[in-house]
């Protein structure tokens, strides 16, 4: 039904993920080598008919049991630690900064506009390629963990604290981010889409996002705007440029431009949008949004038409 982009730490597309993948390959290779060696020695020890040479066995026990592991682990630790400064270093001053709030069970995303005004979106993060990006991470309820496996490591989002992460994408593409800390009922459906593009495309997108919502043009969409307002959708959702200013749920100003719905759960199609509004809890059990099961058909059609054109 839905096709999702890659979500693998072994398919790196960012500097952090590359280092981590490299460390993983070195460790896996080393572990395989040591395993073969140990098993080989064990087979040799069983098969050899005569008694083992006393001095040689002692050397093997001390050397292979204490010295070699110490040396190997020290090397691995040094190698691992040597990556830390770069992974931990904040992005240089003036880099793009993105604020991400973990909320059960979705992601509030805020970019800072040219004049410092926040540009809100949700469940979708777009990034320019080949430049460092600083993430400030928050939680609005319980501990979440922010992880884009293809781009870098994961960092916990802790209520009452700000944590941070730098990512540096190295190739364009679509990726998937997840919540990597169990946070309650719909944890497994708390995901987000990541789109890495060239700088110009990104800037165009950000400029589009910073604009208030477009006024509906068709009669149906105009009617949908009235439904949105009268049915109280604006109590939870904001649409910039309208009276809707709710902060409890995701900002919907440019919902029509997003790839997916419900925190990267359903492709953003008309049919899925209808399902999301009316069968919310079948689609995503435990979600906070109440299901508008009883919305009359004409209002639903108009509402969906309005939301779709919020590009």
């Amino acid at each position, binding site marked *: 039904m839905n096709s999702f982009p890659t979500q693998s730490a072994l398919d790196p597309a960012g500097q952090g993920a590359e280092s981590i993948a490299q460390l993983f390959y070195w460790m896996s290779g080393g572990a395989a080598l040591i395993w073969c060696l140990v098993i080989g020695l064990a087979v040799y020890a069983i098969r050899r008919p005569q008694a083992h040479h006393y001095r040689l066995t002692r050397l093997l026990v001390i050397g292979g049991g204490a010295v070699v592991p110490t040396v190997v682990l020290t090397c691995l630790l040094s190698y691992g630690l040597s990556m830390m400064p770069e992974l931990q270093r904040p992005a240089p001053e003036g880099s793009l900064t993105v604020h991400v709030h973990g909320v059960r069970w979705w992601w509030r995303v805020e970019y800072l506009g040219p004049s410092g005004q926040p540009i809100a979106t949700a469940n979708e993060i777009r990034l320019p390629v080949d430049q460092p990006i600083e993430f400030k991470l928050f939680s609005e309820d319980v501990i979440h963990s922010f992880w884009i496996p293809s781009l870098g490591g994961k960092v916990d989002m802790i209520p009452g604290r700000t944590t941070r992460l730098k990512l540096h994408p190295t190739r364009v593409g679509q990726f998937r981010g997840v919540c990597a800390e169990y946070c309650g009922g719909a944890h497994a459906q708390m995901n987000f889409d990541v789109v890495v593009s060239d700088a110009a495309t990104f800037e165009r997108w950000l400029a589009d996002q910073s604009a208030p919502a477009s006024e509906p043009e068709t009669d149906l969409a105009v009617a949908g705007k009235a439904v949105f307002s009268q*049915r*109280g959708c604006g*109590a*939870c959702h904001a649409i910039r440029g309208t009276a809707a200013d709710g*902060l*409890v*749920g995701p900002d919907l100003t440019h919902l029509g431009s997003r790839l997916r719905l419900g925190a990267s759960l359903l492709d953003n199609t008309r049919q899925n949008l209808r399902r999301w509004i009316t069968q919310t809890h079948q689609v995503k059990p435990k979600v*906070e949004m*109440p299901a508008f099961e*009883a919305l009359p058909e004409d209002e639903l059609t108009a509402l969906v038409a309005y939301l779709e054109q919020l590009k």
Partner: protein
Amino acid sequence: MKRRLKELSILIVCLALLGAVVLVSGVVPIKASSGHWAITRWVLDFASSRSVSFHSRGIQVPKLDQPSIADLGAATFDNNCRWCHGAPGIAQPPVAAGMTPRPPRLSEAVQQWEEAELFYIVKHGIKFAGMPAWATGQRDDEVWPVVAFLRDMPSWTEQDYRDVVQVDPSDTSERAVLAAQRCAACHGLSGGGRAGSRVPDLAGQHVDYLSAALRAYRDGKRFSGIMQPVAADLDDEKIAGLAEYFAAQPRSENPGSETLRGDAGREDSQFQVGKNLARNGDQNKKIPSCIDCHALQPPAGHQDYPMLVGLSADYIRRQLELFQSRSRGGSEHANLMHPIADKLSNDQIEALATYYSQVKLDPGDPPPSNAPED
């Protein structure tokens, strides 16, 4: 010893056989016309009195001194109880007089019961006595006005009773007559209520909301031992007529002088807390604002959602508490309120009830912006 046991066994078997013959033959009359033997009546009365006394232990009696609470009880009584028990100054209907046991004349009978015991009897009914249970098990709050009425009943005259339960229609149109018969004892002819703060003000309420509420009562989807019997036999046409009748009544204004313009200076903290919550919600607790659905001023807000301005604090508080305990039920839109009510603290409920029951808009005021103020 062994012989004794054998004789005893034979005796028990014979008695059981005799019992079975009596039971199966149908020789014992079940007829009500002859009443009970005195001894049977005494045993049954004693047993039921002991049972009520035992099971009503621990029932907390709320304060029953709200204004007009007994009027609400009287109107409920008139709709449901009068058919068997009669009423102050009104004789017991002859059909009920033929019952065994005969439904007691309550003006005298109530004096032997405590308030908690009356509550227990009204809520649960009495087996084999023809006394039915309350129409829903979810609304204990509705039983207390009846208890308040029963407690006061000995002092009520026929005129007192008729003044409360009988309302003459304002005109002879079909819906006005129906409203007078079905609704007006509690809600008043104008919808503004005459049976205390437990009864919602219907005047000027959204017509779609009123229809949906009546249909939900009729279909057993909104729980009320008062309203379900009233709505049970209303067809869609009558419901529409009643909804239009009350929606067309002029909405009474909140008393007091705190207009939207003037209330900024009000230091009443509960009002301010309610105002802030109603307009902005509480993002930390994920509570949405109220006014996006329950607008302060018509025509904003959907017809399916009730207007809250002008309802009593008592009514608003109770509805939120009923939503919390899932004891309210409601139309097909009621589920929207469940997650919201669950997140409200008692203080927040109190604040919202205060705000909506007191806020007053001047006709010239602009619709409130729900952006944070100050």
